[in-house]
């Protein structure tokens, strides 16, 4: 089914602090803009896939959203995989369309932890709070520390990721944080949970994003201006909590990527530009290795050569990523992949033909890979 399904439109809200906005309204705004971008009337939509907001859980969230959208879709659901849910939503939509279960799907996500509650990110981790085990960041810090022990990279390896993303964000007028970062600043910043420095950690953001998915045939019928074909996708789930994980520096991301590359008939060397989930810098290094862009333990050298920076052979997170554009978990990376193929990014890779997007959730529990192409 390579190329049969397209992303027909993209939309997003402002990113940052959006007081007075509930997550449903942010989703509605993003969907309205995505439909306008596709040039498709709302009535054409017959499926809605939404990732549940991370900061608050609500029963029947998918139905609340469908109601607010004034839709009675043939298919729809709210589901949770953490940050991987966005690419997975696109995958579900594509499979459903291919199977004739629906024709035009909205895939969207919104959350408001910045003005609402960010308690989820500082949460006690079950009974282990007795040992002082708190927060989302600490789980990633465990992975980061084991990576340091196994491969002994310089701290600058992580800094290169932060510096590259922040430079891209500074060039993006929509980014929440338009402040470039120097390596000196990266190294001098205080610990969050050691070994995580301040700029290893993504932003906390209010905001929403949406995309419209349909078949290439339907896009032609509806006169969609800039459809971007989906070439491949795949998933993999590591499942084990960090403490139980037999392997800390590699995940099922490798399986997700292998599946996506096989479906697309492509290999890592064919990727022109990548949007790699960067909730913490360690995820970028591990993803580069698991995807086969470099060997295990070699990501430090890969990023030190400037290859992931704008102008490198594999620029990443060209709109700033979670570290700079918005901390919203994941869908903004898909939007930027679409812009790269359309040629409309604020940090455009010249002639980009293949864009890769990675999404992951939990503490690298879930992973999903998307390949987009011209």
């Amino acid at each position, binding site marked *: 089914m390579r190329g049969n399904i397209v992303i027909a439109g993209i939309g997003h809200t402002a990113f940052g602090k959006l007081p007075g906005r509930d997550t449903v309204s942010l989703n509605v705004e993003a969907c309205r803009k995505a439909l306008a971008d596709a040039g498709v009337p709302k009535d054409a939509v017959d499926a809605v896939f939404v990732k549940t907001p991370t900061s608050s859980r609500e029963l029947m969230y998918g139905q609340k959203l469908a109601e607010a959208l004034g839709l009675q879709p043939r298919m729809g659901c709210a589901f949770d995989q953490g940050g991987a849910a966005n690419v997975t939503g696109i995958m579900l939509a594509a499979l459903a369309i291919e199977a004739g279960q629906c024709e035009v799907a909205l895939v969207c996500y919104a959350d408001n932890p910045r003005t609402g509650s960010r308690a989820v990110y*500082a949460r*006690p*981790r*079950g*009974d*282990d*709070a*007795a*040992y*002082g*085990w*708190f*927060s989302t960041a*600490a789980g990633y*810090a*465990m*992975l980061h*520390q*084991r990576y340091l*022990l*196994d491969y002994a990279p310089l701290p600058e390896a992580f800094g290169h990721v932060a510096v590259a993303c922040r430079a891209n964000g500074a060039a993006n007028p929509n980014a929440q944080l338009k402040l470039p970062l120097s390596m000196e600043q990266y190294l001098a910043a*205080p*610990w*969050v*949970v*050691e*070994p*995580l420095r301040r700029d290893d950690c993504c932003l906390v953001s209010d905001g929403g994003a949406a995309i419209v998915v349909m078949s290439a045939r339907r896009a032609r019928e509806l006169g969609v201006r800039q459809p971007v074909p989906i070439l491949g996708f795949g998933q993999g789930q590591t499942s084990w909590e*960090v*403490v*139980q994980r037999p392997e*800390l520096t590699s995940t099922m991301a490798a399986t997700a990527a292998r599946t996506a590359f096989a479906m697309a008939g492509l290999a890592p060397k064919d990727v022109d530009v990548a949007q790699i989930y960067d909730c913490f810098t360690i995820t970028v290094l591990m993803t580069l290795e698991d995807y086969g862009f470099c060997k295990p333990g070699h990501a430090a050298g890969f990023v030190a050569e400037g290859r992931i920076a704008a102008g490198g052979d594999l620029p990443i997170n060209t709109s700033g990523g979670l570290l700079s554009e918005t901390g919203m978990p994941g869908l903004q990376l898909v939007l930027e992949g679409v812009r790269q193929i359309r040629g409309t990014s604020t940090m455009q890779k010249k002639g980009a033909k293949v864009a890769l997007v990675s999404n992951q959730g939990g503490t690298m529990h879930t992973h999903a890979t998307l390949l987009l192409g011209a």
Partner: protein
Amino acid sequence: MADHPLPELTPLSEPYWKALDQGHLVFQRCTCGHAWLPPRLQCTACLGDDWRWERASGRGRLVSWVIYHTAYHEAFRSRVPYNVAIVALDEGPRLITNILAPASALARDMPVTLAIKREQGFALARFRPA
């Protein structure tokens, strides 16, 4: 001083914490041979429920650790910087714990040994360098 966050005892987890209180670290062992923590009702290897509590040797190795420089809970405010670590027991199960040693003394895969310590009278499974 704020109350220390303590585990919530359930019928499933109570034997674990009671054993610690009596000076023993225990884990679950299935008839298929698989061993695990934290407590769960079924074996993740064979999905069976024919398991029993087994006493651990108390020996293990340090898998990874983090250092908190800010407290996420009042009870830890006076303890920063403090470490939280993953220890793999010689018998296989892994757990979250603290290593009773300064950060400079921690090393990859270093052997550690059980050191039961109490918080407000509640026994926790901490470790010290072996």
